[in-house]
């Protein structure tokens, strides 16, 4: 009888243990309610971190931030939490705070990948503060810790090098990235770097190989136009720009425009010297909440002209 009772109890326990996957499917509101209940009973840093993640998933970044600060204050030596807090500060446009946290987190990072990830956050914080030289140094430290890197790292470092005018380094870095990751975005970035570095023939070779394979050509026509302008061939450059503009106008959604298509329109205007149109497109980008790095870059180009 006693054995039977034990078996029944065990079966019940196993049945209840099967619930987590059901409970895990609650919506976020109810997950939050449950976490609130648990935290009211007994608040722990782990629960606060979980609630921060839930708030983040709900888009409530202020609440996520408060909980993360509480969690990291209680357990300051948790690297993952510190890095998460750093990311939140970056998203909230507080790069100095993000940098302080990343510098602290570096002391907690035990293995090479952790140190590399932390250096990347340091680099982003520096870059967001406009300090591109120390940002580049931080990127290089990240790659030293983890030479294989990640696609995003190569792209971010490339942008930093571009801002510093170090086009040869940028090209070398992107070529190295392409060896690790034969990724189309890295290839597109390499072509931009070649054009910026006035290596127009090499850029045109890649562009002319790409264009026949493309259904939508506008982005690459703009690259070709830039290369041709570098070569003082404005006539064919402007033909490419006009073709690109026609294609973009057919595709861009007026209610919810793709910010990169709008940015391409602004680039076309800048290259053709239509400053008024360029300003209008930049304003449209701001109206549709395009990231600052896009509008900032275009405004810099506008200023140069």
């Amino acid at each position, binding site marked *: 009888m006693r054995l039977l009772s034990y078996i029944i109890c065990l079966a019940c326990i196993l049945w209840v243990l099967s619930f987590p996957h059901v409970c895990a499917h609650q919506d976020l509101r109810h997950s939050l309610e449950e976490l609130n209940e648990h935290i009211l009973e007994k608040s722990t840093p782990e629960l606060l971190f979980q609630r921060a993640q839930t708030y983040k998933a709900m888009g409530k970044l202020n609440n996520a931030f408060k909980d993360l600060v509480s969690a990291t204050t209680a357990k300051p030596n948790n690297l993952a939490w510190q890095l998460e807090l750093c990311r939140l500060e970056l998203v909230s446009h507080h790069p100095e705070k993000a940098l302080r946290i990343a510098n602290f987190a570096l002391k907690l990072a035990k293995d090479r990948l952790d140190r590399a990830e932390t250096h990347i956050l340091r680099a982003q914080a520096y870059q967001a503060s406009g300090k591109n030289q120390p940002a580049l140094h931080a990127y290089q430290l990240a790659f030293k810790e983890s030479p294989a890197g990640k696609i995003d790292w190569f792209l971010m470092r490339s942008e930093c090098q571009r801002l510093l005018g170090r086009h040869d380094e940028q090209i070398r870095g992107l070529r190295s990235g392409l060896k690790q990751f034969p990724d189309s975005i890295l290839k597109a970035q390499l072509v931009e770097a070649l054009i910026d570095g006035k290596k127009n023939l090499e850029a045109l070779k890649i562009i002319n190989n790409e264009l026949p394979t493309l259904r939508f050509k506008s982005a690459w026509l703009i690259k070709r136009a830039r290369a041709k302008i570098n070569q003082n061939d404005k006539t064919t450059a402007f033909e490419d720009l006009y073709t690109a503009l026609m294609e973009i106008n057919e595709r861009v959604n007026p209610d919810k425009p793709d910010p*990169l298509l709008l940015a391409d329109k602004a680039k076309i205007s800048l290259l053709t010297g239509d400053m008024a149109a360029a300003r209008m497109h930049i304003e449209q980008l701001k109206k549709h909440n395009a990231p600052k*790095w896009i509008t900032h870059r275009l405004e810099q180009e506008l200023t140069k002209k």
Partner: protein
Amino acid sequence: MHTHPFTRKFATIFCLLVLLGHFSTAAESIKRGPYLQLSTDTSVHVVWRTTAVITPSVRIGSHPDKLSSTCSCKQIVVRRNKAHHKSPHALPLFNAPKGTYQYEAKISELKPDTRYYYAVYDGDNRLTPAEAGFTFRTHPKPGTNRDTYIWVVGDSGTGNPSQKQVHQALINHNKKHKLTLDMYLHVGDMAYGSGKDGEFQKKFFEIYQPTLRNTVCWPSMGNHEGQTSRGKSGVGPYYDAYITPTKGEAGGVPTGNESYYSFDYGRTHFVVLNSHDLDRQPTATMAKWLREDLAKTSPNRIDWIIAYWHHPPYTKGSHDSDKEQQLIEMREHIMPILESNGVDLVLTGHSHIYERSMLMDGAYDTPTVAENKILDDGDGDEKGDGAYQKSPGLKPNQGTVQIVTGHGGTGLRRKGYSPVMRRSLVEHGSTLINIKGNELLVTMLNKNGEIKDKFQIHKKKIVQPTRIAEPWKPNAKNNTPKAVDITKDAKYIIPKKAVWQYHTGSFPSPAWTEPNFDTSAWKTGKAGFGYGDDDDTTELKMKNKFASLYIRRNFDLTNLAEARKLLLSISYDDAFIMYINGKEAFRKGVGKGNGKTARDISSHEANGNFELFELSSFTELFNTGKNTIAIEGHNHSPNSSDFTIHPSLVLQIK
């Protein structure tokens, strides 16, 4: 020669033991698979696991008895856990069981669109049974017009009977109609609770083995796999299990990682995204790759674009796409890129329901609205309202159909109705796609083998899309009254804050809804009933104690014609069932059961709003003269922070 009886017995037993040991060894040596991965028109990967070191090879041939070609162990990648991993060509396994050897054999130089049979060997010892089930078919040559048959599953990884029934329904359906799958797409959550290696083993590989050994599964990562696997690093049990393109091997543009990818099959381009743990911004790397990939998708060789990932841009199933960040971002950031590049079909999971939209374009707002975003609000069935029509080729903004197919095995739920959805079905099943030239046919096969939804997209003629200002909305034919906005004159038969009889704290007798039920022991109070939110006239001490409330009231109807003009106006949080004269009329948010047996309660915020429901479909339940209305209200959980039931009855005069 004479042998002693004891010797003969011993020899027999010994031989039997040796044979048993041999077959045990052979039967036990494959622990996972073999299963197929990453196929192209000239290659395929065969993957399997053992717990003992073997001399691996794969033999293939055009007949199960003639496996004449061999992929030898030198060409096979071996992966182990970190401590023992040696291969420089692959990452170690994340946390496979101790002693695991995972073999990944790439078989190349195959002919396009050709069926091959295969077997896995350890030296000369065959590990897979000698039967015809171990087979694969290579892709057709890119750009070839080839009928394609696809199975799509989501949120299945429970290991429970429903998951198995869904799979069996597919097998039976294929057998009955003599169909062979060309591919299996999974939209995520294939291994609950957190995508661990053991969960993958039990809830995915063991259950789907009869299909996985002859059909490639092309996966997308769900949030549950995302608890142990990371998109940015490509590390975890999910990435151990699957081999997906990184260099554009199967068509499409290289990504450099397995987290998102694309591939071609015949004249269809598939795009697979990671909606879980990568940056979903329109300027982030995944979105940039998506643009490049779609820009290279040529209408010269592609007729259809199908995109899939885990988190649905439109749903009101067990998740709400107007309230959750990942879903909102996929809608606001990714859908514009897809629709401006001519996507035809979007498949998702995460929400545990089957939902299927009308032909739509440009619905990027939050909350989602359907007005002027629907291009065809019919049912899409050529035998019904007509197939959805699009121009041939890959024209931008000609319409997409969204399918949420998160009903592959886990618990189901519906919070409400997304305004863009044409079908919303709370039952287990999976989605089947047939592509034949310029026709794409989709069916929903439930776990009982019944077809519960069907629509087609045709690309036969040039179409000029027009937007519908007031598209179709769910109505009483779906067994739920249409929620309407009252704009006509009306009078209250039962006003707001009227007095009702009410009962809570225990389950009443099942006869409580009957007109003659004795309610002398019940309390009376003014509506609304509930707690929390400071919006209830009769405050109830239900929190942490009880999750349901029962209220009833009598009213008079002068004549039955009035019944056709009645509306229930109700503010509720979370769910309710309405009864008229003892019969259930309709329910909102209560999936199954009544009273004590009520379950699958959806959450619903009242927000002080009153929703109107036509009662014209229930005219036959009313009487001339005295009528009894009864409502049982349910909370999602007894611990919920609030609860509200505040009904009134309105008679439309005009």
